[in-house]
C-alpha cells in the first residue's frame, strides 16, 4: 500500500507544479474584472504610481459593474521577463485586457493583431503631444498611448567648463544650437585641459540606448533609418547623409573626445566634464549627486542643415485584441495616460509630459534643466522608425555603431552602412 501512497503523492506534486491558474474574469462581488499587466515591479516608484492610479480608477467607477486589476511583471535588463510572459500568453490566448509595450513594438504588435486600435473609444486625441501620437500610430490608427515622454541631451559640469575657459553664456540653446564642428571644438578644449575624454556618450551600452540616442544625428543630417512608408532601408540608411552623421561620431572617438570604455559615473563624480544622457539623469543627479552644478544643452546639429532633432519615446499602454471588455479596457488605457496620471508620474520619476494639458502644469514645476529637455522634445522630438521588423532594424543600427567605433578596421563607413542596410532590408522584406 505504501507505494501507492508514494505514487499518488508524486502525481499530486506533479499536477501542483504543472497546473497553472487562469485569472477569473468575474470578481467575487459580481463585478467584471479588467486585468492589466505592467512591466515594472510594485515596489518601484513608477509601479507605486500605477497602483495608485488603478485604485483611483476603481474609486471613480465604483458604481459601475467593473473592477480594474493590475499585475506587476518586472522586465529584466535585456527586456526579457515581461515580454516573454506576453509572448507566452499569446500562444495560449491568455493575454489580459490591457498591456504595456515599448514604443518601437507598436508596429509589430499592431500588425500581428495583438493590440486593438483605440480610435473608436478614445475621442480626445488632440491633447496628445505629436511625438506620442507618432509613436503609438500604425497605419493611421492609434493603438497605444505613452505614459511619459523622454529626451536626451548633453549634461555639462558648469565648474569644469568655466575652469577650461568656456563662457557659459555662449553655450547653445534649443533656439540656437551648435553645429557638430562647434561641439568638436568644445570637446577639444576640454580634452586638452583635463587630458581625459570630454564626454561619456554611453557608447559602451549595447542596447536600445544606442539607437534611441544616436539616430537623431542621422535625422539632423537629413538622413533616415528607413523610408517613411517603412518599406525601404537599403538606399535610405546607406545614403551619404548617414555617412556624415557616422563620421561625426567616429571623429569623437578617434580624437579621444569620447570613449567606448568610460569610467563608471565619470560625469557624476566630476571626472569627465560632460555626459550624453536621458532626462532620467536629472532625477539621479538630484538625489545622488546634489553637489554637482550642471546644465543641459541640446543636441549639436549637422553643419549643413542646422536642423535640431532629438529622440523621444517611452513605454505605452494598449488594449489587447482579445479583450472582452474593449470599452472599459480603452477607458483604462486613457485613464492611465490622462493628465492626472501623467503629472503624478512626472513628479515621481522626473519624466516629460505626453499631453498639452499636463505640460501646462509641469512647465511651472520643472527645473531649468528639465525645461531644456521639454522645449527640445516639443519642438524637435522624433519617434523611432515604425516597422514590424524593428528588433532587427535597431540591432543593425547598433552594430553599425559598434563597427564604426573600431575605426582602424572599418575605415570605409559607406561599406559598413551598405552591409547593415541590407540586413535591415531583408528583415523588413520578411516582416511585410
Amino acid at each position, binding site marked *: 500500500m505504501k507505494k501507492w501512497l508514494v505514487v499518488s503523492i508524486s502525481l499530486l506534486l506533479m499536477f501542483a507544479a504543472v497546473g497553472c491558474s487562469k485569472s477569473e474574469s468575474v470578481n467575487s462581488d459580481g463585478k467584471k474584472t479588467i486585468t492589466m499587466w505592467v512591466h515594472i515591479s510594485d515596489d518601484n516608484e513608477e509601479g507605486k504610481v500605477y497602483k495608485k492610479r488603478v485604485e483611483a480608477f476603481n474609486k471613480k467607477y465604483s458604481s459601475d459593474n467593473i473592477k480594474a486589476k493590475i499585475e506587476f511583471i518586472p522586465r529584466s535588463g535585456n527586456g526579457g521577463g515581461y515580454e*516573454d510572459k506576453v509572448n507566452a500568453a499569446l500562444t495560449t490566448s491568455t493575454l489580459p485586457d490591457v498591456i504595456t509595450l515599448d514604443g518601437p513594438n507598436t508596429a*509589430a504588435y499592431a500588425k500581428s493583431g495583438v493590440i486593438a486600435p483605440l480610435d473608436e473609444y478614445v475621442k480626445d486625441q488632440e491633447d496628445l503631444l505629436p511625438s506620442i501620437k507618432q509613436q503609438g500610430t500604425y497605419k493611421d490608427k492609434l493603438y497605444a498611448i505613452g505614459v511619459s515622454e523622454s529626451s536626451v541631451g548633453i549634461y555639462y559640469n558648469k565648474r569644469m567648463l568655466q575652469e577650461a575657459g568656456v563662457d557659459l553664456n555662449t553655450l547653445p540653446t534649443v533656439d540656437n544650437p551648435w553645429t557638430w564642428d562647434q561641439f568638436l571644438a568644445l570637446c577639444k578644449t576640454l580634452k586638452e585641459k583635463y587630458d581625459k575624454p570630454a564626454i561619456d556618450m554611453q557608447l*559602451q551600452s*549595447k542596447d536600445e540606448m544606442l539607437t534611441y540616442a544616436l539616430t537623431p544625428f542621422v535625422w539632423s543630417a537629413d538622413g533616415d533609418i528607413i523610408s517613411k512608408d517603412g518599406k525601404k532601408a537599403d538606399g535610405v540608411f546607406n545614403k551619404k547623409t548617414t555617412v556624415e552623421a557616422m563620421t561625426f561620431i567616429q571623429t569623437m572617438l578617434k580624437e579621444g573626445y569620447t570613449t567606448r570604455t568610460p*569610467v563608471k559615473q565619470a560625469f557624476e563624480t566630476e571626472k569627465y566634464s560632460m555626459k550624453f544622457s536621458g532626462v532620467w539623469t536629472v532625477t539621479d543627479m538630484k538625489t545622488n549627486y546634489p553637489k554637482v552644478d550642471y546644465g543641459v544643452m541640446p543636441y549639436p546639429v549637422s553643419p549643413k542643415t542646422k536642423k535640431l532633432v532629438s529622440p523621444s519615446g517611452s513605454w505605452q499602454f494598449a488594449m489587447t485584441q482579445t479583450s472582452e471588455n474593449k470599452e472599459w479596457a480603452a477607458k483604462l488605457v486613457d485613464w492611465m495616460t490622462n493628465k492626472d496620471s501623467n503629472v503624478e508620474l512626472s513628479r515621481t520619476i522626473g519624466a516629460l509630459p505626453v499631453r498639452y494639458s499636463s505640460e501646462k502644469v509641469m512647465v511651472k514645476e520643472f527645473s531649468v534643466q528639465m525645461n531644456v529637455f521639454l522645449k527640445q522634445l516639443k519642438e524637435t522630438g522624433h519617434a523611432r522608425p515604425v516597422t514590424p521588423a524593428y528588433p532587427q532594424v535597431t*540591432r543593425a543600427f547598433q552594430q553599425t555603431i559598434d563597427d564604426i567605433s*573600431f575605426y582602424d578596421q572599418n575605415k570605409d563607413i559607406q561599406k559598413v552602412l551598405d552591409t547593415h542596410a541590407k540586413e535591415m532590408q531583408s528583415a523588413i522584406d520578411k516582416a511585410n
Partner: protein
Amino acid sequence: MSKIGWKENRTVYTFLRPEGRIKNKILWKENVVAYTFLGPALLLLSMFLVIPSIMSVYYAFTDYYLLTPNMRTFVGLDNFINLFQDPIFLKSLVNTLEFVVWVIPLQIGAALGLALLLNKQRKANTFFKVAYFSPVVMSLVVISVLWLYLLNPNEGIINNVLTYFGISAQPFLTSPKQAIFTIVVVSAWQGAGFQMLIFLAGLQNIPGDVYEAAQLDGMNKWQRFIYITLPLLKPTSIFIFITTLIGAFKLLVQPMVMTQGGPVNSTMTVVYYIYQTGFTDRMVGYASSIALLFGTIIGLVTITQRKLVKEDED
C-alpha cells in the same frame, strides 16, 4: 559499464521466460510498478524536452512568427537556405567552434592538473576541493558579473595589477580579438572544478600497487604519469571529454552577460543567436531551423567521437 548492465538484464529475462505464466505475471506486476515510478519523470521529460524538441523540428520548416502563433505556414527549406546566407549565423558558428577548440584543452588540462595536485595533497584537502569546486555551484550570471568587475578596463583589479607591473592595460572584453579568449579563460576557470572532481575519483580508483611495481621497475615520475596514470584514466577522460564538449557548444550566459555578443559579433555564439532570433526578433521558425542544424552538428560530432574512441579500443 552500461553494456554489462544491459547484458545482465537480458539473461534475467531469458531465465524468467520458460518458467511460465506465474513468473510472467510477477514480471508484469513488477513492470507496472516500475513504470508507475518512471511515470512522473517520463511525463515531465516528454513535456519539457521530447515534445518541445519534436515541435521545434516542425517549426524549423515553418515561418512561425512569435506574435502570430496561429498563422504559421509551411515554407519547406527556406529557413535553411537563408541560414547559409546569414553572415551573423556563420560568424556565430565560427565563434562557437573557436571557443570549443580553445576551452576544451584548457578546461580539461586545468581539471587534470588540479586533480593531480589534490591527489597528492593531504593537508587541507577538503578546503581546496571546496575552493576549486565553488565556481561550479555558483550561478553563471553571478560569475560573469564578478568577472566583468575584475576585467573592467579602467577600474578593474586585473588591469590595475598589470599596469603596476608595467604591462599596458588590456581591452579584455572590448577588443574583437581578445573578447572570445577572455570568455574561454573565464569559462574554463568556472567549469574546471567539476571535471576535477571526476578526475580525482578516477585517480583514486587506480590501485597503488601498479605504481609500486612501476617504481620497482625503475620508472620515474614522468614515466609513471605517461604510462600508468593517463592510460588508466582513459575511461574517465572519455566521459569528461564528451560532456565538456557538449557543454562548450552550449555557451550562452557568459557572452550574454559580459559582452552581449560584441564587439562586432566576435562573441556571438550559436545558442545566443538562437535566443536572439527567436525571442528578440520573434522569428521562431528561423530560430528553430538554427537549433535543428546545430543539434545535428553536435550529434554528428558526438557520434564521430564515439566511433573514434571505439576504434581505438578495438
